[in-house]
């Protein structure tokens, strides 16, 4: 068909359109072939697994998991089935991704504006931050945060009492937490701090690592977005008597957001997906839990499939939300 198409283009006149029936026929054929190929691959794999005495299937999800998870939002214990372990892992992924997105956006915006500042010192520091953060691999940064936290903080049985009810040690940050009608205050125990709520060094390392790394990219996006608004707009705003702050708030930002939002969405997606590196510093995110499950059961296909589909759903969800927001800013800009 490519031959036909180029031929018609050369002899001027409108390109000949394909009869719809013809197109439908081949598209259906292609879809059928694809479905058949996938079905064949799956059945072939299953047959070979059976032949070699390897169990397959998702039935293990309802079996007791048998392993503990160090920290979780959900009340999970080892006697619960695998699917609740996965859920606890997913909750941990969300628990680090959401605060990560918030902190990355705040930091990124500040650094991005700093890059455009007229103050030399501020501009240089911002540029330095961006270059340092985005040019060192994320995994290395995570390990650096983690080792800094675990090496520098005092031993777990020798926690520092930072403020009333707040302890800091190699076991993390403990603080009072509302529980059953009263505050539960942390106390120094024999081995480590007990009671209250706490965040572990693993969480802190992943959160800080992801936020600062992503902030560098957000900063560049914000800078590019603002610079995409033509200077004339700013000059016009100033000549109408708006202060620089007002000009940024009412004139520049609404237009810049149209450029910023789509690419910042990508950064949010990246942050969520990058949280899978958490396993390197021992944070029990979805990948870490799925890896453990994979090893306990040997169901490699199934566990990887769970990881893939969960990240797919998370990413699509983030996309949908950000696209909605984008539609709003885009319309306002166009109006």
């Amino acid at each position: 068909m490519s031959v036909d198409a180029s031929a018609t283009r050369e002899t001027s006149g409108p390109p000949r359109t394909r009869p719809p029936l013809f197109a439908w026929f081949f598209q259906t054929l292609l879809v059928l072939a694809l479905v058949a190929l996938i079905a064949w691959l799956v059945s072939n794999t299953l047959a070979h697994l059976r032949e070699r005495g390897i169990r397959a299937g998702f039935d293990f999800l309802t079996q007791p998991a048998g392993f503990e998870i160090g920290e979780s939002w959900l009340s999970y214990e080892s006697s619960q089935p695998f699917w609740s372990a996965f859920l606890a892992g997913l909750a941990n992924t969300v628990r680090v991704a959401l605060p990560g997105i918030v902190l990355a956006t705040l930091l990124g915006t500040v650094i991005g504006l700093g890059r455009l500042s007229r103050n030399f010192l501020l501009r240089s520091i911002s540029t330095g931050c961006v270059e340092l953060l985005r040019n060192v691999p994320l995994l290395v940064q995570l390990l650096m945060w983690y080792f800094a936290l675990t090496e520098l903080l005092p031993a777990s049985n020798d926690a520092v009492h930072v403020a009333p009810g707040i302890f800091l040690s190699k076991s993390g940050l403990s603080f009072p937490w509302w529980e059953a009608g009263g505050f539960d205050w942390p106390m120094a125990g024999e081995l480590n701090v007990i009671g209250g709520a706490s965040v572990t060094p693993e969480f802190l390392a992943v959160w800080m690592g992801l936020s600062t790394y992503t902030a560098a990219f957000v900063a560049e996006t914000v800078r590019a977005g603002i610079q995409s608004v033509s200077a004339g707009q700013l000059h016009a705003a100033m000549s109408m008597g708006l202060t620089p702050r007002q000009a940024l708030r009412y004139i520049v930002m609404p237009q810049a957001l149209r450029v910023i939002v789509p690419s910042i969405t990508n950064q949010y997606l990246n942050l969520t997906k990058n949280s899978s590196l958490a396993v390197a510093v021992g944070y029990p995110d979805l990948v870490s839990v799925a890896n453990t499950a994979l090893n306990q059961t040997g169901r490699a296909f199934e566990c990887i499939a769970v990881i893939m589909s969960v990240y797919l759903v998370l990413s699509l969800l983030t996309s949908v939300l950000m696209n909605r927001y984008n539609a709003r800013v885009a319309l306002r800009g166009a109006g």
Partner: protein
Amino acid sequence: MTRISIRLAALIGAAGLAATLAAPAHAGKTLDTIKQRGNINCGVSTGVAGFSAPDSQGQWSGLDADTCRALAAAVLGDAKKVNFVPLNAQQRFAALQSGEVDLLARNTTWTLTRDASLGFHFTTVTYYDGQGFLVPKKLKVTSAKQLKNAEICVQSGTTNEKNLADYFRAQNVKIKPVVFEGFEASFKAFFAGRCQAYTTDVSGLAGLRNKEAKNPDDYMIPDLISKEPLGPLVRRGDDEWFADVKWVIFALIEAEENGLTQANVDEQKANSKDPVVQRILGTSEDTGKLLGLDKEWALRAIKASGNYGEIFERNVGPKSVLKLPRGANNLWSKGGLVYAPPIR
């Protein structure tokens, strides 16, 4: 039409490729493949002292490594024809299933799930281990039961992770596991003080304490919480290879029982009148033929690595870095559990 036909051709090509990829690795003929290839692919750890660890020259040493060497000597006639494939805890099973390695000799615990649902056969136990804890002495913990609320560093994908949960659930004691994917990351975090205890098999703890701790005397190992029989495993579907691996290990144990050592095996072959020794060394009966090997298979295995006792002494015994007593790993005739069926 050309574009569609190209698409179809690509599709058919992809399908063909997928078919070759999905085809099973040549099952049932492992021994032939090894002979043709000229070496044994032996799956080992990424570095567990005493079992399989590379030195600065890349030479592998350890109980598992020596088992593979003995096997290569028996099967290929040359102990050097081993290709050591380092695998982490997550990779190990997939590597054996896919045929990337011919056997997995990687301090792996024999459990029902692994034996019955992953498509493997455990050959036999080469080391009777148990799970324990490494605890800094200054915490004054004398029993694992005192680890209430403690944070315990552990490597993911091990039986240790599950035992840990089981043990403390049975004791009704709450603990917080801190799980790392890599062995190295897990013990580094422990020595940095992130956890109050570290758990793995006692053989592993001994290696860590004596090799990685700044001052080994600062740490102690209170008590055991599980049994961990470790041994090599092979893929299902090749009974001949399964038998070969099993019997090479049995031969090493039989050798110790009958006083055959790396040093005296040649002399024994020439002079021994003992019918048991004659059978092992192939001077009377040809046991090798039944295994698809030659007459001197066991002789070569013993010459390559020494008998089981010698392998133990060299790698994990009191004179090695691990300094572990023989204990349960002594011969059955000396009060241990090590027992091989007779070569006859």
